[in-house]
Protein backbone atom coordinates (compact mmCIF):
# COMPACT_ATOMS: atom_id res chain seq x y z
CA UNK A 1 0.00 0.00 0.00
CA UNK A 2 1.24 3.46 -0.90
CA UNK A 3 2.49 5.53 2.01
CA UNK A 4 -0.14 8.22 2.59
CA UNK A 5 0.82 11.83 1.93
CA UNK A 6 0.00 12.61 5.54
CA UNK A 7 2.46 10.00 6.77
CA UNK A 8 5.01 11.10 4.18
CA UNK A 9 4.85 14.71 5.40
CA UNK A 10 5.09 13.57 9.01
CA UNK A 11 8.67 12.39 8.31
CA UNK A 12 9.89 15.98 7.81
CA UNK A 13 11.97 16.95 10.80
CA UNK A 14 13.02 13.38 11.59
CA UNK A 15 16.33 13.68 13.39
CA UNK A 16 19.12 11.45 12.13
CA UNK A 17 21.13 10.04 15.05
CA UNK A 18 24.49 11.26 13.71
CA UNK A 19 27.78 10.57 15.45
CA UNK A 20 31.52 11.22 15.34
CA UNK A 21 33.69 10.75 12.22
CA UNK A 22 37.46 10.48 12.34
CA UNK A 23 38.91 11.51 9.00
CA UNK A 24 41.75 9.02 8.89
CA UNK A 25 44.74 10.06 6.74
CA UNK A 26 44.95 6.68 5.00
CA UNK A 27 41.36 7.02 3.83
CA UNK A 28 42.18 10.42 2.37
CA UNK A 29 45.18 8.94 0.56
CA UNK A 30 43.15 6.05 -0.85
CA UNK A 31 40.30 8.36 -1.85
CA UNK A 32 42.69 10.62 -3.75
CA UNK A 33 44.11 7.54 -5.46
CA UNK A 34 40.65 6.28 -6.45
CA UNK A 35 39.36 9.56 -7.86
CA UNK A 36 42.62 10.67 -9.48
CA UNK A 37 43.43 13.56 -7.17
CA UNK A 38 47.10 14.26 -6.40
CA UNK A 39 48.52 12.95 -3.14
CA UNK A 40 51.03 15.81 -3.00
CA UNK A 41 50.02 17.42 0.29
CA UNK A 42 48.54 16.26 3.58
CA UNK A 43 47.35 19.57 5.02
CA UNK A 44 43.85 19.31 3.57
CA UNK A 45 41.54 16.40 2.85
CA UNK A 46 39.72 15.91 -0.41
CA UNK A 47 36.64 18.20 -0.28
CA UNK A 48 34.39 15.20 -0.97
CA UNK A 49 34.97 14.12 2.63
CA UNK A 50 32.20 16.60 3.45
CA UNK A 51 29.95 14.05 1.73
CA UNK A 52 31.73 10.85 2.82
CA UNK A 53 31.83 11.83 6.50
CA UNK A 54 28.19 12.92 6.51
CA UNK A 55 26.75 9.85 4.82
CA UNK A 56 29.02 7.47 6.72
CA UNK A 57 28.01 8.89 10.09
CA UNK A 58 24.34 9.83 9.78
CA UNK A 59 23.66 7.16 12.37
CA UNK A 60 21.39 4.86 10.38
CA UNK A 61 22.05 2.79 7.28
CA UNK A 62 20.62 3.74 3.92
CA UNK A 63 18.34 0.72 4.22
CA UNK A 64 17.03 2.06 7.55
CA UNK A 65 16.55 5.48 5.98
CA UNK A 66 14.58 3.92 3.12
CA UNK A 67 12.48 2.00 5.67
CA UNK A 68 11.37 5.31 7.20
CA UNK A 69 9.58 5.82 3.90
CA UNK A 70 8.21 2.28 3.65
CA UNK A 71 10.77 1.32 0.99
CA UNK A 72 13.83 -0.86 0.47
CA UNK A 73 16.75 -0.59 -1.93
CA UNK A 74 15.01 -3.28 -4.00
CA UNK A 75 12.29 -0.71 -4.77
CA UNK A 76 14.70 1.13 -7.04
CA UNK A 77 15.41 4.11 -4.80
CA UNK A 78 17.68 6.54 -6.67
CA UNK A 79 19.87 9.50 -5.85
CA UNK A 80 18.30 12.74 -7.03
CA UNK A 81 20.63 15.59 -6.17
CA UNK A 82 23.69 15.93 -3.98
CA UNK A 83 25.35 19.03 -2.58
CA UNK A 84 28.38 19.80 -0.46
CA UNK A 85 28.70 23.26 1.07
CA UNK A 86 32.11 23.75 2.65
CA UNK A 87 32.65 26.50 5.20
CA UNK A 88 36.17 25.46 6.20
CA UNK A 89 38.55 22.96 4.52
CA UNK A 90 38.51 19.51 6.10
CA UNK A 91 41.79 18.14 7.42
CA UNK A 92 43.11 14.58 7.76
CA UNK A 93 43.32 13.46 11.39
CA UNK A 94 40.40 15.63 12.51
CA UNK A 95 37.21 14.37 14.12
CA UNK A 96 33.85 15.81 13.07
CA UNK A 97 30.45 15.67 14.72
CA UNK A 98 27.66 14.82 12.31
CA UNK A 99 24.01 15.70 12.86
CA UNK A 100 21.07 16.02 10.53
CA UNK A 101 17.45 15.65 9.67
CA UNK A 102 14.92 15.08 6.93
CA UNK A 103 14.23 18.55 5.54
CA UNK A 104 11.56 18.07 2.92
CA UNK A 105 9.27 15.68 1.08
CA UNK A 106 7.28 16.04 -2.11
CA UNK A 107 4.93 13.64 -3.87
CA UNK A 108 5.17 13.99 -7.65
CA UNK A 109 4.02 12.28 -10.80
CA UNK A 110 5.82 11.75 -14.09
CA UNK A 111 5.38 9.71 -17.27
CA UNK A 112 8.67 7.93 -16.65
CA UNK A 113 8.29 7.00 -12.96
CA UNK A 114 4.59 7.35 -12.27
CA UNK A 115 4.01 8.45 -8.70
CA UNK A 116 7.24 9.08 -6.83
CA UNK A 117 8.38 10.80 -3.66
CA UNK A 118 11.30 13.18 -3.39
CA UNK A 119 12.93 13.14 0.03
CA UNK A 120 15.50 15.76 1.06
CA UNK A 121 17.84 15.41 4.01
CA UNK A 122 20.64 17.53 5.36
CA UNK A 123 23.70 16.64 7.44
CA UNK A 124 25.99 19.13 9.16
CA UNK A 125 29.63 18.67 10.10
CA UNK A 126 30.97 20.47 13.14
CA UNK A 127 34.49 20.60 14.54
CA UNK A 128 33.83 21.50 18.14
CA UNK A 129 31.22 24.24 17.86
CA UNK A 130 32.41 25.41 14.46
CA UNK A 131 30.33 24.54 11.40
CA UNK A 132 32.70 23.03 8.83
CA UNK A 133 30.31 21.91 6.11
CA UNK A 134 26.85 20.78 5.10
CA UNK A 135 25.86 17.84 2.91
CA UNK A 136 22.40 18.08 1.32
CA UNK A 137 20.98 15.16 -0.60
CA UNK A 138 17.77 13.94 -2.10
CA UNK A 139 16.46 10.47 -2.86
CA UNK A 140 13.81 9.51 -5.38
CA UNK A 141 11.37 6.83 -4.19
CA UNK A 142 9.44 5.35 -7.14
CA UNK A 143 5.95 4.37 -5.94
CA UNK A 144 4.20 3.23 -9.07
CA UNK A 145 5.45 2.67 -12.62
CA UNK A 146 3.83 4.03 -15.77
CA UNK A 147 0.42 5.02 -14.47
CA UNK A 148 0.01 7.33 -17.45
CA UNK A 149 -0.24 10.62 -15.56
CA UNK A 150 2.20 13.52 -15.75
CA UNK A 151 2.77 16.79 -13.95
Amino acid at each position, binding site marked *: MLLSEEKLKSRVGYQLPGGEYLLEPYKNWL*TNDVVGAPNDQDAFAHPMFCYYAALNTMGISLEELFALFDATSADGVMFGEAEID*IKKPLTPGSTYSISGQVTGVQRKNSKKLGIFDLVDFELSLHEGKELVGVSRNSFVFPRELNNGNDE
Partner: protein
Amino acid sequence: MATMNNPKVGSKFPPYEVGIVDAEKMKTMAVLLQDPNPIHWDLDAVENLGLGDKPINQGPNNMAYVVNALVSWIGDISGFRGLKVRFIGNVFAGDRLTVVGTITGVDQVEGRDLATCDVQLMRGDTSDGDIVMSGQASVLLPE
Protein backbone atom coordinates in the same frame (compact mmCIF):
# COMPACT_ATOMS: atom_id res chain seq x y z
CA MET B 1 39.03 30.50 -21.70
CA ALA B 2 39.15 31.84 -18.14
CA THR B 3 42.59 32.37 -16.66
CA MET B 4 43.27 33.02 -13.02
CA ASN B 5 44.05 36.66 -13.86
CA ASN B 6 40.95 37.05 -15.96
CA PRO B 7 37.99 35.25 -14.40
CA LYS B 8 35.29 36.82 -16.55
CA VAL B 9 31.65 35.81 -16.28
CA GLY B 10 30.76 33.75 -19.33
CA SER B 11 34.26 32.40 -19.92
CA LYS B 12 35.06 28.72 -19.65
CA PHE B 13 37.56 27.15 -17.27
CA PRO B 14 40.04 24.71 -18.84
CA PRO B 15 38.52 21.29 -19.73
CA TYR B 16 39.71 18.65 -17.25
CA GLU B 17 40.49 15.22 -18.65
CA VAL B 18 39.42 12.61 -16.09
CA GLY B 19 40.60 9.78 -18.31
CA ILE B 20 39.19 6.26 -18.50
CA VAL B 21 37.04 5.05 -15.57
CA ASP B 22 38.73 2.04 -13.97
CA ALA B 23 36.59 -0.83 -12.58
CA GLU B 24 39.26 -1.73 -10.02
CA LYS B 25 39.03 1.73 -8.41
CA MET B 26 35.31 1.18 -7.82
CA LYS B 27 36.09 -1.82 -5.63
CA THR B 28 38.32 0.27 -3.36
CA MET B 29 35.69 3.01 -3.16
CA ALA B 30 32.96 0.50 -2.31
CA VAL B 31 34.93 -0.42 0.80
CA LEU B 32 35.76 3.20 1.67
CA LEU B 33 32.10 4.22 1.33
CA GLN B 34 30.84 1.01 2.96
CA ASP B 35 28.60 0.79 -0.09
CA PRO B 36 27.16 -2.73 -0.44
CA ASN B 37 25.56 -2.13 -3.84
CA PRO B 38 26.98 -4.87 -6.14
CA ILE B 39 26.49 -2.84 -9.33
CA HIS B 40 29.94 -1.39 -8.64
CA TRP B 41 31.81 -4.71 -8.88
CA ASP B 42 29.55 -7.66 -9.75
CA LEU B 43 28.84 -7.99 -13.48
CA ASP B 44 26.14 -10.57 -12.86
CA ALA B 45 24.28 -8.11 -10.62
CA VAL B 46 24.58 -5.37 -13.24
CA GLU B 47 23.24 -7.65 -15.97
CA ASN B 48 20.44 -9.07 -13.80
CA LEU B 49 19.23 -5.53 -13.14
CA GLY B 50 19.25 -4.77 -16.85
CA LEU B 51 21.82 -2.04 -16.42
CA GLY B 52 24.30 -3.21 -19.04
CA ASP B 53 27.41 -5.33 -18.89
CA LYS B 54 29.96 -3.12 -17.14
CA PRO B 55 30.38 -2.01 -13.51
CA ILE B 56 28.70 1.31 -12.71
CA ASN B 57 30.76 4.05 -11.10
CA GLN B 58 29.79 5.42 -7.69
CA GLY B 59 28.00 8.78 -7.93
CA PRO B 60 30.36 10.41 -5.40
CA ASN B 61 33.31 9.47 -7.66
CA ASN B 62 31.71 11.48 -10.42
CA MET B 63 31.31 14.42 -8.04
CA ALA B 64 34.96 14.08 -7.03
CA TYR B 65 36.11 14.45 -10.65
CA VAL B 66 34.37 17.82 -10.81
CA VAL B 67 35.99 18.85 -7.53
CA ASN B 68 39.37 17.81 -8.97
CA ALA B 69 38.75 19.93 -12.07
CA LEU B 70 38.02 23.05 -10.04
CA VAL B 71 40.92 22.48 -7.64
CA SER B 72 43.25 21.93 -10.60
CA TRP B 73 42.06 25.21 -12.13
CA ILE B 74 42.47 27.38 -9.02
CA GLY B 75 45.57 25.50 -7.81
CA ASP B 76 44.43 25.48 -4.19
CA ILE B 77 42.42 22.65 -2.60
CA SER B 78 41.52 24.88 0.37
CA GLY B 79 39.71 27.27 -1.99
CA PHE B 80 37.02 24.77 -2.93
CA ARG B 81 33.70 25.82 -1.41
CA GLY B 82 30.73 24.01 -2.89
CA LEU B 83 29.19 21.70 -5.44
CA LYS B 84 25.57 20.85 -6.19
CA VAL B 85 24.87 18.22 -8.83
CA ARG B 86 22.09 16.34 -10.53
CA PHE B 87 22.84 12.80 -11.67
CA ILE B 88 21.70 12.41 -15.26
CA GLY B 89 23.13 9.08 -16.39
CA ASN B 90 25.19 6.15 -15.19
CA VAL B 91 28.96 6.18 -15.73
CA PHE B 92 30.41 2.79 -16.66
CA ALA B 93 33.85 1.27 -16.42
CA GLY B 94 35.75 2.15 -19.57
CA ASP B 95 33.97 5.46 -20.12
CA ARG B 96 36.20 8.41 -20.99
CA LEU B 97 35.19 11.51 -19.05
CA THR B 98 35.91 15.22 -19.19
CA VAL B 99 34.79 18.04 -16.89
CA VAL B 100 33.82 21.29 -18.57
CA GLY B 101 32.30 24.45 -17.18
CA THR B 102 31.58 28.14 -17.43
CA ILE B 103 31.94 30.95 -14.92
CA THR B 104 28.52 32.36 -14.09
CA GLY B 105 29.42 34.86 -11.40
CA VAL B 106 32.25 36.43 -9.42
CA ASP B 107 31.35 37.94 -6.05
CA GLN B 108 33.32 39.37 -3.18
CA VAL B 109 33.17 37.11 -0.12
CA GLU B 110 35.27 37.80 2.95
CA GLY B 111 37.49 40.08 0.89
CA ARG B 112 38.12 37.50 -1.81
CA ASP B 113 36.67 36.64 -5.20
CA LEU B 114 34.23 33.73 -5.09
CA ALA B 115 33.60 32.31 -8.56
CA THR B 116 30.44 30.34 -9.24
CA CYS B 117 30.41 28.03 -12.24
CA ASP B 118 28.06 25.83 -14.19
CA VAL B 119 29.75 22.44 -14.50
CA GLN B 120 29.15 19.33 -16.57
CA LEU B 121 30.70 15.88 -16.54
CA MET B 122 30.79 14.62 -20.11
CA ARG B 123 31.26 11.16 -21.58
CA GLY B 124 33.12 10.91 -24.87
CA ASP B 125 34.14 13.92 -26.91
CA THR B 126 33.25 17.29 -25.47
CA SER B 127 31.92 18.32 -28.89
CA ASP B 128 29.33 15.56 -29.23
CA GLY B 129 29.47 13.51 -26.02
CA ASP B 130 26.64 13.17 -23.53
CA ILE B 131 26.31 14.95 -20.20
CA VAL B 132 26.16 12.42 -17.36
CA MET B 133 26.10 14.91 -14.47
CA SER B 134 25.55 18.65 -14.26
CA GLY B 135 25.48 21.25 -11.56
CA GLN B 136 26.98 24.34 -10.00
CA ALA B 137 30.26 24.79 -8.13
CA SER B 138 31.89 27.60 -6.19
CA VAL B 139 35.57 28.29 -5.53
CA LEU B 140 37.59 31.03 -3.92
CA LEU B 141 39.99 32.45 -6.48
CA PRO B 142 43.64 32.89 -5.48
CA GLU B 143 44.46 36.21 -3.81
